[in-house]
């Protein structure tokens, strides 16, 4: 399965890029995070504290248990600070 993964704010800064096409067989968001963290120190640092990581699956706020089947876009970012 080919995903487009987006990163925002300090998650983006730690990982070093804002988006990437990524081939994975991860079943859930949590599985995907585990895969990404194994890639390099930047990813590991970005996901070190999952209590400050939010995820959107196909642009809808979601959670780490969410399945990735049929999804095309996953985004990781810190808690939002709009307004």
């Amino acid at each position: 399965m080919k995903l487009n993964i987006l990163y925002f704010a300090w998650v983006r800064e730690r990982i070093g890029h804002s988006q990437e096409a990524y081939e994975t067989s991860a079943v859930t968001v949590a599985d995907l995070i585990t895969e990404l963290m194994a890639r390099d120190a930047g990813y590991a640092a970005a996901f070190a504290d999952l209590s400050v990581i939010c995820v959107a699956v196909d642009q809808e706020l979601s959670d780490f248990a969410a399945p990735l089947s049929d999804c095309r876009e996953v985004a990781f970012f810190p808690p939002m600070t709009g307004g």
Partner: protein
Amino acid sequence: MSARVQEATFDFAAEMTAFQSTVTRSGAVVSFTGVVRDDTGNLDHMFIEHYPGMTEAALQKFADQATEIFDLEKALVIHRYGQLQPGEAIMMVATAARHRKDAFAGADYLMDYLKSRAPFWKKELSKGSAAWVAAKAQDEAELAAWGLEGTAKES
């Protein structure tokens, strides 16, 4: 229910004049404006990042939800991104309703959702430092106080 995400400044006075001119059955109009403040005296500027596509959908959803929950005749949300100077308006909401409590509650609700559920991230760039603004536990508590959180997270 109108929602806009833009880099450019907006003219609050002109937006409110336009908003009020299209209101026909509401006796109560409420507005909120958020402004960049330099609390430390060191802020050079603020940078706001957002998630194009998701942001617009989120603002529209919150405006529609507020409209339905509080029986608003009309709601408006404008939120900026990019580089903002101290004193510049970051965003505004406006609501119109028959009853004043609904107009107030609709605007307050919209703000609470914008704060914590719209994909914006603020970075403060000061002389010699740059830091992403941390989300406040208080903001989550205020969102939870509406008692509607389940709906919002699932939708």
